Structures are given as structure tokens and as C-alpha cells.
């Protein structure tokens, strides 16, 4: 395999000249330079899929907003991370996440430790801009230790990625389309019947919301360990 040579690229973020390596993403270079771009599906240590679109930025000359977590840097591009249009779009994306499922913070196990909730505070989203759909999904509580509540899932796919890339089990995947998309185990079997799940719990600990959680915990009692993935990756010498 012929590897593309890594080169240094210079470009602009918010009018400031920055440099990065050609295999880096806009998000990585921005964060290296202390420029914060909001993210949600992104988790340090896992691959980036750009599923949530929270990190969208504007690139001069491009008509569409681009997700910073998957866009590789290019020489001379001019990136804007914050504009009224981007802010409005991010708020609309967040609103649509709230409207798709039933995110009732006040009674949620993840209340107070939820990235979706925190993002709403950060982006000052006070109410959903689109009506709630109130779609109901069945809870999978078959596993002896964990619960999968698709009603709180934002389809970030962190659980799928951590199971595949870190645990190496790939017990999880997506099924269905559009609003009906769900996280499933194996061939859409109850979690308890999954042959490939190792019950390691990584999916539960990286889930940004209360969609995956430890059984028998009540409101606000959820335990998340989102930082452990980066530690594991470092221990394996990949960083």
C-alpha cells in the first residue's frame, strides 16, 4: 500500500493562520490551537463518523456546512467555526435530536451527566424548535446488568464503534432507517441472547445520554466513564 506522505498544511480558522499535518482533521487542528468546536458523537480514542453534525463549520467557497471531525485539512482553506448561520443550524440539529426521541431530562437516569443535556446548555437551546414526535420504542432490559432504552438514543454510534474498535466484539450495529433507526445486538436479538456481547460495559460507559445504562439505578444515578477509552487506547500504545 502506498501511503500518502504526511505534509504540513497551512490554512485559516476564524481568520487566524494555523498549521497542521495533512492527515489531521479540522477539529484536531482547531483543538490543538485552542479553538473549541462543539461535538457530540465524537469521542477521543474512537474513529470519527460525523453522525451528529454538531461540529459543522463553514469552508469558504463551499456551499454546504462541513463536519470538522471528518474533514481533513487542506492548504489555504478558510474555515469559520462560528457564525450566526452555524449557530442556528446547530440549534436546529439539536432540536431535531430532541424531537426524534423522548428526552425527558427530569426523570432520566443520566440527568446531570448527559452530553445532550450539556450541549443544550452550551448552545443555549431553551426549547425544541420542532415539535416532538413522541415516538415510542420498546426498552430492552433483558441483559442482567444493562438496559438499552432507544427512546433516549441519539444514534451517535459511539457504542457500536467502541464495541468494534476497542472491545473487538462488534456486537452492536444499526437497524432500520430514518426515524426508526435503532441500535441492535447481533441479528436484532434481545441483549441477553447476544452471542458476541462480552458484557464488558464499554458501550454503557461511553453512551452520551441515558440510552444505555446500568440496571437498577434510579434518576440521576447513572455512571459514565467516557474518559476510559482514551486511557485504554494510550495503554495499547496507539496514541
Amino acid at each position, binding site marked *: 500500500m502506498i501511503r500518502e506522505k504526511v505534509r504540513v498544511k497551512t490554512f485559516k480558522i476564524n481568520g487566524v493562520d494555523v498549521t497542521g499535518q495533512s492527515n489531521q482533521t479540522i477539529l484536531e487542528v482547531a483543538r490543538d490551537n485552542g479553538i473549541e468546536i462543539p461535538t457530540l458523537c465524537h469521542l477521543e480514542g474512537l474513529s470519527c463518523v460525523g453522525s451528529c453534525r454538531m461540529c459543522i463549520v463553514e469552508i469558504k467557497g463551499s456551499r454546504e456546512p462541513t463536519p470538522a471531525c471528518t474533514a481533513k485539512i487542506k492548504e489555504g482553506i478558510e474555515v469559520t467555526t462560528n457564525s450566526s448561520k452555524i449557530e442556528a443550524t446547530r440549534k436546529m440539529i439539536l432540536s431535531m435530536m430532541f424531537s426524534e426521541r423522548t428526552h425527558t431530562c*427530569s*426523570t432520566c*437516569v443520566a440527568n446531570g451527566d448527559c452530553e445532550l443535556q450539556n450541549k443544550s446548555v452550551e448552545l443555549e437551546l431553551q426549547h425544541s424548535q420542532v415539535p416532538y414526535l413522541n415516538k*415510542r420504542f*420498546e*426498552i430492552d*432490559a*433483558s441483559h442482567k446488568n444493562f*438496559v438499552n*432504552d432507544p427512546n433516549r438514543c441519539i444514534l451517535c454510534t459511539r457504542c457500536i464503534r467502541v464495541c468494534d474498535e476497542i472491545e473487538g466484539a462488534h456486537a452492536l450495529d444499526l437497524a432500520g432507517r430514518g426515524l426508526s433507526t435503532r441500535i441492535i445486538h447481533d441479528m436484532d436479538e434481545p441483549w441477553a441472547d447476544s452471542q458476541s456481547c462480552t458484557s464488558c460495559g464499554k458501550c454503557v460507559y461511553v453512551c452520551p445520554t441515558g440510552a444505555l445504562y446500568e*440496571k*437498577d*439505578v*434510579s*434518576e*440521576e*444515578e447513572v455512571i459514565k466513564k467516557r474518559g476510559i477509552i482514551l486511557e485504554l487506547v494510550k495503554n495499547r500504545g496507539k496514541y
Partner: protein
Amino acid sequence: MENKKIIIDPVTRIEGHAKITIDLDCDGKVEDAKIHVTQYRGFEKFCEGRMYTEMPAITARTCGICPVSHVVASTKAIDEILAVTPPQAGINIRKIINLAQILQSHTLNFFHLSSPDFIYGFDAPKEDRNIFKMMQTHPVMAKDGIILRAFGQKIIEELGGKRIHPTGITPGGAAKKIEESQKEMILKEIPNAMKIAQGALKYFKENLHKFQKEIDSFATFPSLFMALINPDGTLEHYDGVLRFIDSEGNILEEGIDPQNYKDYIGEAVEEDSYLKSPYYKPLGYPMGMYRVGALARLNIASTCGTPLADEELKNFKALGGGKPVLNSFYYHYARLIEIIYAIEKIEELLNDDETISETVRRTSKVSKNRGVGCSEAPRGTLFHEYHVTKEGVITAVNLIIATGNNNLAMNAGIKQAALAFVDGNNITDGALNRVEAVIRCFDPCLSCSTHALGIVSSKIEVRDHNKNIIKVIERN
């Protein structure tokens, strides 16, 4: 003259939303009166499919005034499902929070909602019958009410984590132990709280003579009473067994395990109200009308078990002359006694060494597929019944909210008051206020008053038999 209908909508100074209709006959005399609860909540249905662990948090949202009661009943139902007995410290913490809730809720009813009627009279101009006028004319009393309610709310916040919808009561016990500093903080405020409570009781008793006609006609009739009670006959709000007595004071059923409540309580549904009408099954519907709440509890209990409350209980019992007190107006009296009891009991429980021990919670897994939680809410006996799968997913829910138990009695009460005070040919504001005040005696919590926004207004429509509005009286 045609048949007419008077509609009071909404009923003011109560928790929640309701309207009253008064039917007049051709001569303008009262024919019938009914209370309609106009809200639909749907908790029993939308809880289906959720995890059992979420039930305390979800059902707490039934109400903003008495969320603690729902959390207590809910966690007790889950304790049953988990087949777990919380450690004594956990039980004591729950009891203290529950008593603090009863204290603050009773205070709210007396000072904020009902006292304008006592101070200014039922015929006072409608502009004066509110807490704002009270702040102007009786600033100390208004302030006392706020202080006493805050005392209860502070206890809930300290031990439960939040003033409204607390998270500190969890399946298997309580979330956190009581710290010594918290205990001291609460104990320090007890003397002042007791002073205010006794002052309120004194004021009420001194002014009682002004309301003899109301005492006689505000839901004063024979009925059954139901409440939780300790096996030794003392007042109980958390544990204990259910007891039914009749209007003569005879015990109809003794020692009913709340798990078997369905054997004794039937649930009727009426076409014109979203509130169900529970009844005592052996007597059938509607003969099995019973009352719950402070009046029922004090009628059923032989003693409170705390010195100051017991002293006052003797005076209360004397009103019935050895039999249960049948006048619903005395709900106010019973609530004031319960405030004193709650303060004494909170002090007693805090000084119990067991209460501040380290172990406050036990954990377990789903062990049964059905659990009933029962507790005494400020307004009466509250039931939560859950059915779950072996994984812990809720399959069925049945709730009997405290106020619901009083539904038949409230309807009978407003009819009695309407007959006594309302004249269809001369409808006065004072008469209609009295009909509303009957409802206030029961202090109904018609679910989730926290969702009521803005100025609560009252609209009374006089309609003929074709429902054409012929007269409108508005209050706002």
C-alpha cells in the same frame, strides 16, 4: 322559569383545576351540584413500558405540591417488587421527609389558600380574599405561613436533595445519610416552627365561633373513614395497616394489608369527571363513600403519640362526643393538629440515633412481579400499584391518588353547601365562594398545580337547560 345551571370554572385557591356545576330547578332552587376534574394526565398508561427504577421520578411529577408522597408510595411499591426491607435509617429519613411534606402542604392550605376566608369572612369582596390582601392587613401571619412552609421545604431539600421532586428517596431506602450538621440545622428551627403552628391553631380556634353555619353545612354527613394506622392505634403516615370505620366509630375492617387494597376498595368512573370515585367495596357504589385525609386520620387514630398533638387531639375528639367528627370544616382543625404532630415527630425521629446511622439503603433485584406502595399523603391515603416483567419493565400501573378517595364525599359536600347557601333567584358571590370553600376543606390536589400559569380566574356561568349562557360572573 326554566331549569338553570350555574358553573364555577375554575374553582379557585385549590391545587389543580376543577369546575363546579350547580343545577337549578324551575323555581331557582338547587337541584344538584357536582365537581368535575377537568384535567387528564394519563400516568397509568404512559408509565407502561418504562423501567421500574424510573417510577419514583416519573410519578413524583403527578404533583408539585406533594411529590414526596408519590415518591414514598412509589419507592414502597418498588421495595415490594425487590422484596427488600430498607434499613431503619432509610425508613426514618423517608418518614422525616414525608412529615416535612405534610407540614408544608397543610401550611400552604391554611395560610395561603384558606385563611383569607377565615380572616375576611366568606362574604368579603372577592378582591380581598387572597394572600396578597392578607400580607397588607396581617403581615405577621402571612410571613409566618411562609416561614413555616419554608421550614418543611428546607427539610425536604436537605434530606431529599431538592425541594420539589426530591431524588433522595430511592428504592431500598434513601440516597444519603443525614449529616450531623443537617440534623442540628433542622433541630434549631423547630422551636420557631412550633410557635408559629401553635399560633395558627390558637387563631383558628378563637375564630371558629364565626363559622357555625359553615361548620354545619360544609360536607357534614355520615360517611366511612379510611386511613393507615399503627397496630397500637397511634397516628401513622408511612407504615401501618389500613382501617375503615363507620360514622359511629365502629371498626368495619381492621388490619388490612395495603397489598390487598383491591379487596376492599372499588373504583367507579363517572362520565363528567376525570377523577375516579373509589368506594368501600363491601357497601358498593355509591353507598361505600368514605373520607380520607387529616380528618379521617384523627378520627381513626386513638392517639397521636406525641405530647402536644395529643393534648389538642383530646379537644378535637370532644367535638365528636366520642364518635367520629363528621364536619368536613374540621379538616382545617385536623390539619393544624397534624402540623404540630409533624414538628414533634420530626424532632423525635432526628433525635433517634438509628436515624443518623451509616447504612441507609439496601439493593436488590426484581423478585416479585407486583408491588403496592401505600402511604398517607397530606390529603389522604395514596396507593401505587405496579406490575413488572422479570426484567423490571412496567406492564401495568394503578394509582389511587389521595384526593380521589374523597371524590364522592366532595360531591356530596358541595351539594349540601349549595342547598344551604345558593338561591338561584339571587346568586351571590359569597354563596358561590362557600361552595368552593367546601372543596378547600378537603384540600384537594387535583394534580400538578405547578403547571397552572398566570392569574387563576374563576368564571361562573348561569346556563339554561339548553346550555345557553344567560348570565356570566367573572372573577380575575
